[in-house]
């Protein structure tokens, strides 16, 4: 039991960076813009966050710096794709390369220096709840924030009017415009917010999970965050589920490895990918629709809502109002 709790707890806190990055990307893509620069942004902000926290000895400033870096990279994506109407994928890809290299170049003085880190912060009373307490409430502020973000973003999307408008903009900008939405402005805002979250994810990496800075420290997590957004069907809860699933698979790899089992460890980090492809194939197939059609109406709608994972229809397109 102890062991199990420890594993769950480590999955939750180790997944925080991926949660922030994939939810940040979810926010962008729901608005209709792909920010492909996640990996590069995370690298640059991980470096910047660590450097600032190290020099100023303030974690808050470190995270703030990382968020600003994320927002700056995102503003380039926004400017290139919304204002200049360049291809979003191309702009994001170039930025990911540039930001990644920049992080290596600027980060040289900070490589493998020990620096500050987030302390754990158990929550009184809640921590005493059996099982739940030790798993969820003996963590740290970053992990708590990741919980809050998941729930908050879900509420924003499905319970608030601006969130509904956001979904509309990614789905059919011309119809959103017809209903009074300022498509370009909102896209800008959400890209900057999403970028800030991705930046936050970078700092969560260097100041929380994989302490310190080294060359290419994020090791492809940015790309994984992008894949998890697709896996999660652009829904905050499902994206979070995907992120935790990924975390769980990685944790099992480590555990099995330490228990001396003869399994090639490389297999586990790779597992999520075939799993994702499989889910995508199943959930987007016509076969599923046919099966669903046999169900009673209520169950069918609930399941459709749960399983449907169509990308926002206007993802990657430009909007020009007449």
């Amino acid at each position, binding site marked *: 039991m102890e062991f199990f709790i420890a594993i769950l707890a480590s999955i939750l806190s180790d997944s925080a960076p991926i949660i922030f990055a994939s939810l940040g990307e979810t926010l962008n893509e729901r608005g209709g813009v792909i920010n492909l620069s996640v990996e590069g942004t995370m690298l640059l902000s991980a470096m910047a966050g660590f450097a600032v926290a190290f020099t100023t000895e303030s974690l808050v400033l470190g995270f703030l710096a990382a968020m600003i870096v994320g927002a700056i990279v995102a503003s380039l994506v926004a400017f290139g794709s919304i204002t200049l109407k360049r291809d979003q994928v191309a702009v994001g890809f170039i930025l990911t390369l540039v930001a990644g290299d920049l992080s290596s170049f600027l980060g040289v003085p900070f490589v493998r220096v020990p620096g500050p880190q987030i302390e754990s912060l158990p929550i009184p009373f809640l921590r005493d709840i059996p099982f739940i307490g030790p798993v969820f409430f003996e963590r740290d502020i970053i992990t708590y924030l990741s919980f809050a973000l998941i729930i908050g973003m879900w509420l924003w999307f499905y*319970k*608030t*009017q*601006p969130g*509904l*408008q956001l*979904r*509309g903009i990614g*789905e*059919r900008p*011309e*119809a*959103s*415009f*017809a*209903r*009074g*939405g300022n498509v370009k402005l909102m896209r800008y805002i959400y890209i900057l917010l999403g970028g800030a979250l991705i930046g936050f994810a970078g700092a969560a990496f260097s100041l929380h999970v994989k302490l310190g800075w080294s060359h290419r420290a994020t090791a492809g997590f940015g790309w994984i965050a992008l894949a998890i957004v697709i896996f999660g069907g652009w829904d905050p809860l499902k994206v979070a589920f995907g992120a935790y699933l990924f975390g769980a698979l990685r944790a099992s790899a480590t555990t099995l490895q330490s228990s001396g089992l003869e399994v090639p460890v490389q297999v586990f980090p790779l597992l999520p990918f075939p799993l994702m492809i499989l889910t995508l194939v199943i959930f987007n197939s016509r076969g599923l629709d046919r099966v669903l059609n046999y169900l009673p109406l209520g169950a069918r*709608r609930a399941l*459709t809502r749960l399983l*449907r994972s*169509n990308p926002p*229809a206007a993802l990657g397109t430009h909007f020009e109002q*007449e």
Partner: protein
Amino acid sequence: MRVELKNIHKHFGAVHANNDVTLTVEGGSIHGLLGENGAGKSTLMKVLSGYIHADGGEISLDGKKLKRFNSPADALRHGVGMLHQDPLDFPPMTLLDNFILGCDASLLQPRARAEKEFRELCQQFNFDLDTNAFVSDLTVGERQQLEIIRLLWLGARTLILDEPTTGISAPQKIKLFATLRQLAADGKSVIFVSHKLEDVEDLCHRVTVLRRGQMAGEAKSPFVTERLVQMMFGQQLNIGKRPNVELGAPVIEFDHLTLKDDRLTVPDISLSVRMGEVLALAGLEGSGQQLFLQACAGLLPPSAGQLRLNGIDLTRKPYENFLRAGIAYMPADRMKEGLVPGLSIEEHIVLAKRGKKDALIDWTRTRQTATAQITDFNIKGIPTTRVEALSGGNQQRTLLALLPPDLKLLALEHPTRGLDIESTLYIWGKLLERRKQGAAIIFASADLDEVLQYSDRILVFFGGRVIETVRSSETSVEQLGYLIGGKKQ
């Protein structure tokens, strides 16, 4: 609400889509806006509902002058709402989400209140809509109903419907008309945009007819159909006078051919077209002409029946076989389907070469051919001119120049749409030369004068069916106008 549009002008590049249009709609009435495809109806209504800004003119509501609306939302705040030809909604969302999106709530979605008022509106109009259903599962008719109650909920007092009867079933149309009558009886004004005579005559109290961006006239119910047809299509009655050409053996034969795509079925066509014959396909856009042309060209396999070319069965054979049999197809969208933007005239000549191709391109010879073709077809360009830099007329000439020499059948979609008179005449000159050499020509056109002037026979399509086959020498623009609108005399 009384709506007035005064002296509205709107240009799209060289197209004068609205030319000094003035329109008054009284409160409590249903006002028709009638005109052919491209007459400028949608443009005018987009001006009235704030989607686009007019280049000139003014709008007044209940006598109060406004320069213009800034946006659709602005128009709706003033009480003007529009239903688009393709409903502007969000298919993956639920009806309730769609209903709420765009309302003036600032933070939380007013779901409970909206749901209650949604139900009340449905009850009032006898609509059967479920707030939890997804819009993607609705028919077009139901999506219209959703938009209607949504706009009313947001305070619309003038409702514009752009071609609402395209794509809905007969019972839904009856329901829609009942709804619109009910709205007018409540004092709302309804503007009903259509190219279908029958619908306008059924429903409207008054009608304004647009032709080529200009007002062609107004009429009050009860309508005289001939007058409406005259206003829609212009007055000249043009009995075709074509040089007679001896018709030869059948080139293409259709035997109980049925064509289908996901929107339309064209059932049971039996027909043969002979050497030297010109067959025109008339009808409103999307009535089946395009499917027919694509089937002739081998791009759309028929779902039933047979198609023979020069006596050889080509039913469901690959496109290659059609090419080899001597068929050429010219699509309407020159830049999208006909030419490759970014490539030059000479590069197109290389691409279009049929038969055996060499691995290396002989540029010297290609350039000679290109120069010869450019002179022959009077194209304003040089071999290295990129096709997108050519004007519409020159693009069309380039397409013609690319056709191989000994064709048996030319299938043309709107061969002269958007071209000036000089280019039109030139292109028809070239086409008729082919016909003299024994090729058959099948073309679709929205221009009835063109149809009458150049064809021997006319197939009139309506809603996917061939409702009439007429000889061009025995019909008139007026009669064709009736037929296209779905009216047999």
